């Protein structure tokens, strides 16, 4: 068995207590929510924090609350998110994203805040210490070269969170709390296109909640491409959200690609092309092609990068067809390998 390295464990009872600990510890502390990302990474020595600050004992960080829209505590498990009727009814894209994270067991432990802060992934990086030693390490941890593209000045590890693209498409915000105060940030602004410093969160900040404005008729969807019907991180994902007028005219639209860069990519041109028109096959084709252009996958996830690039437009088209109201359940079944309904039960 691979054992965890030694660390000191802190279990604050409130977010402010946790923030105070972070303020004292600096970047050597790591936040622990469900642990499904951090603990395996620690076993592989990808992260070796001196102090682990557990958020699980802070009950205020759990639960989904009504207000103007929806507020989801960052430590709500993905299962709790999936089982929430309001999420399912009003924010289908988020529901579909959360329902496709990993496996039921991991969703029972993993939290929405943890999924948003998920470490970027790379097949040169998500390996044991011994394996990484055999390649003389990489830029993201203990080394200097990005083996995905040895000429690259920055790390190309992949943003692999499912919920972030969905939340960005929905225009969600997150609250970041620190000893010095708190701030609200668009989820879109939480990320940077750098595999090492992929979060705009400062080390002393805690992501405490996710805020969604009222759905107000916005339709949303999330499509995840991965090898198997369970376990796998996305190799490409597409989140879309749009408001359609009664006659089908697109009043607003957002398309977000996941897992093709170190951050989720907002396909603004593609969305812009849809605005003011209806979702005809032709319009979907144009928007899909425009969105797919953004996808520049590298050879550091499952599947070949050429194939991931090649099929991006097809997946965007599926998302837009679902927004249009097409019955895409058979396509969903083939791609996801199961109806998502089973995820919520």
């Amino acid at each position: 068995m691979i054992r965890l390295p030694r660390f000191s464990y802190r279990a604050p009872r409130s977010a402010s207590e946790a923030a105070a600990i972070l303020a004292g510890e600096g970047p050597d502390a790591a936040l622990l929510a469900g642990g499904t990302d951090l603990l395996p990474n620690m076993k592989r020595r990808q992260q070796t924090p001196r102090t682990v600050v557990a958020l699980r004992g802070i009950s205020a960080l759990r639960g989904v609350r009504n207000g103007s829209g929806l507020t989801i505590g960052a430590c709500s498990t993905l299962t709790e998110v999936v089982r929430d009727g309001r999420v399912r009814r009003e924010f289908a894209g988020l529901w579909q994203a959360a329902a496709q994270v990993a496996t039921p067991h991991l969703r029972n432990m993993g939290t929405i805040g943890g999924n948003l802060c998920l470490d970027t992934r790379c097949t040169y990086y998500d390996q044991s210490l011994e394996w990484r030693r055999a390649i003389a390490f990489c830029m993201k941890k203990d080394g200097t070269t990005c083996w995905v593209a040895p000429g690259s000045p920055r790390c190309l590890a992949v943003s692999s969170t499912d919920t972030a693209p969905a939340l960005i498409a929905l225009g969600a915000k997150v609250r970041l709390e620190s000893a010095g105060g708190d701030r609200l940030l668009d989820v879109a602004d939480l990320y940077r296109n750098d595999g090492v410093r992929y979060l705009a969160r400062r080390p002393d900040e805690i992501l405490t909640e996710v805020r969604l404005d009222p759905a107000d008729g916005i339709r949303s969807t999330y499509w995840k491409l991965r090898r198997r019907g369970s376990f796998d991180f996305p190799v490409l994902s597409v989140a879309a959200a749009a408001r359609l007028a009664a006659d089908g005219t697109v009043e607003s639209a957002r398309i977000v690609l996941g897992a093709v860069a170190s951050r989720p990519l907002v396909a603004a041109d593609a969305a812009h092309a849809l605005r003011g028109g209806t979702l005809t096959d032709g319009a979907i084709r144009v928007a899909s092609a425009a969105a797919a252009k953004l996808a520049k996958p590298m050879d550091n996830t499952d599947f070949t990068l050429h194939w991931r690039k090649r099929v991006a437009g097809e997946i965007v088209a599926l998302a837009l067809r679902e927004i249009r109201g097409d019955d895409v359940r058979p396509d969903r079944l083939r791609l996801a390998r199961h109806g998502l309904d089973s995820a919520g039960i």
Partner: protein
Amino acid sequence: MSDGRFDLVGRPRRRVDGRGKVLGETRFADDLTLPRMVHMKLLRSPLPHARIRRIDASEAEAHPGVLLVLTGKDVPGEYGILPVSQDETALAVERVRFVGDPVAAVVALDEATAADALALVEVDYEPLATIATPEEALTTPEPRIHAYGEEGNVHKRAAFEFGDVEEALAGADLVVDGVYSYEGNTHLPIEQHASLAAVEKDGHLTLWSSTQCPHYVHRALQKVLDLPAAHIRVVATPNGGGFGGKSDVFNHEMVAAKAAILLGRPVKICLTREEVFYCHRGRHPVKMRMRTGVKNDGTLVGMTLQTLLDGGAYGSYGVASLFYTGALQTVTYRVPRYRFEGCRVFTNKPPCGPKRGHGTPQPRFAQEIQLDTIAEKLGMDPAELRLKNVAEPNSLTANWLRIGTIGLAECIRRVVDASDFTGRHRKLPHGRGVGLACSSYLCGAGLAIYWNKMPQSGVQLKLDRSGLVTVFSGATEIGQGSDDVLVALVAEILGIEPSDVRAVTGDTDLTPVDLGSYSSRVTLMMGNAAIQAAERARALIAEAAAKRLDIPRERVGFGGRRVFDVEDAGRGLAWREALVAAEEMHGTLGTVGSYTPPRAAARFKGGGVGPSAAYSYSAAVVEVEVDPATGWITVPKIWIAHDIGRALNPVSVRGQVEGSVYMGLGEALMEEQAFRRLPARLSGALVHKFPSLLEYKSPTTHDMPDVETVLVEDPDPAGPFGAKEVGQGPLLPIMPAVSNAVYDAVGVRIHEVPITPDKVLKALDDRARGGPGRYGPDGFPDVEWPEALRVPPPWEGGDGNATNDPERKRAAKLEKVKRT
């Protein structure tokens, strides 16, 4: 059992080991603890190929909690599973050959300390040039990965010709020539290998280990530790899956044993998942070229096959794997003339060996796709083409394999009916398709891996006045259900319940030798031995009961836990009374049984791989949906028929069939033991691409389609009550059936596993550009083949000997003289 009617055989029953496994009570190797037990970790090479200049373990030895550090010089004895490939040492002696090759062992009071101390062992390596592919191995004779083998990095070559194939192909109406490639993949047992070694109070060494072959581990330990066999005990703990991955002899077993002897304390090691990928011994990547000639009516006239196996860094079972790639093509269909040429090379990767189907899935993939191509070119139904060529029962093949019963035609008919193959093949809308493929597998290798004339399986029974029957067998329960077969056969013959029988298995101190749970040998070999032992016990009890009941022995029946007069069933003895009578008459009761497979018909050198007492057969139809825009493949349903001879426990048989389909589908669609080289100018690294359960893709329950299983039962006289194997055969047709179904769906041929969406798209692109619509290797590498051993097929006047092997001929003549 009485009057040939079965009480247990053929009835679906709960397995005897089911309760323990479901309740978590089964004690696997890593569950074992002993007082004063300490823990071991292995330091593995970070370099793919290097000379070890120096190892400094002093800092590790001084680390608090560390008890012992071992390096290659402490356990220098060479070993290997095959007598011809004694090329391994427990820890590297002066050379490492792949990333993951064990270099040193640290034993400490706890596992974390041992792991920490590994980092303190300093190893000074001198890197050597590496070989990543079989093509490189062929063209790079230096540096040699091993000093033995044929030459350069060629481990072994083989060539046989059974009749003049070129003449046969010249007379064919159609010859299809194709090259195919099969990626390597690994067993992925859920239980990671673990071992516990201890010197017990009598001074003897005991090794508990998750091994499929305690007898072979026993032999290797004698050699490496230089101890008398009688002072070593190997206990095979129940395996949490094996699939061939625990049938070799492993470094950690040797080192744990050595450490336990040196320390006088029990030493435990449990491998990490990553280490299991390095132990490997899994499916060889194989490149193949196959040519098949047919008449216009579909009759096969001849076939040639060339295989090139990427062996990895050590021999393992590889020589056998090599011969198996050429052995079984003739067992399904009558191939009048056949030539096989094969070559295994060394590369700087974890060693390949036997995985479920051992060496035969790769050529089966080529053959069944090629038949599909032939059927299309001839305008024949693929099922009809196969039915026309099905081998004859009780016949010899061109390569001198003796076939007994063959239920292949029935399997084809049943699976075609169940799936409406004929009604749907070439008739489904674009994007949907069905594919058919068949296969065969042996029921136990005819020869042991080391030459001997002793039984390959022995069984002992102990019976006493308590009513309990204890059955002892060296066979190992690896999840396949061998304990259940053993208990059920004994209970059936003695007319008692499985709960009246206790199995003691896989323990070299307590149980008679059985070669192990590999080559689908256990049901047939152990089963026959168990039947012999149980019938001998039955005879003893019948004699005593006959006397007690005052009836002739022939009238004594066994059933319902009674021993009775078959002409007056009310008159009889309860089982315990019968045992008391038997113990009074004969004294302490005990019997033995043993099994040795029949002698092979082949007499030529190399003819020892392939012969078996019986062959199982399977036919499968796979349905696919392929999205032409993405290449995405969905498998909604699989139908499979398996010729089991007789199903001893149908629920277990179906479980094995479904498990095989599952594993086959993983190989067909996603599994790859793939490696990565970094840019040569920056790094010499050659690493396993993803040694983890997450990134080595194996199907989940969501990826598994419905499977409809049909059991075809035609009892084979060689099997216990007619039973044949089911552990491996049903895997074989899945991969080619998927490829054939993809062709039916979108019209492209994928000649390489795994069959992935990107390959489908590339083949579709190829077709769109006016190409043949194919994805696969461009050609077969240049191999310098040796002169083939020429063995005339039985119908061309042969006697099973090669005509151009004078040495062999002389030996045969001498033997004949000796016999007369």
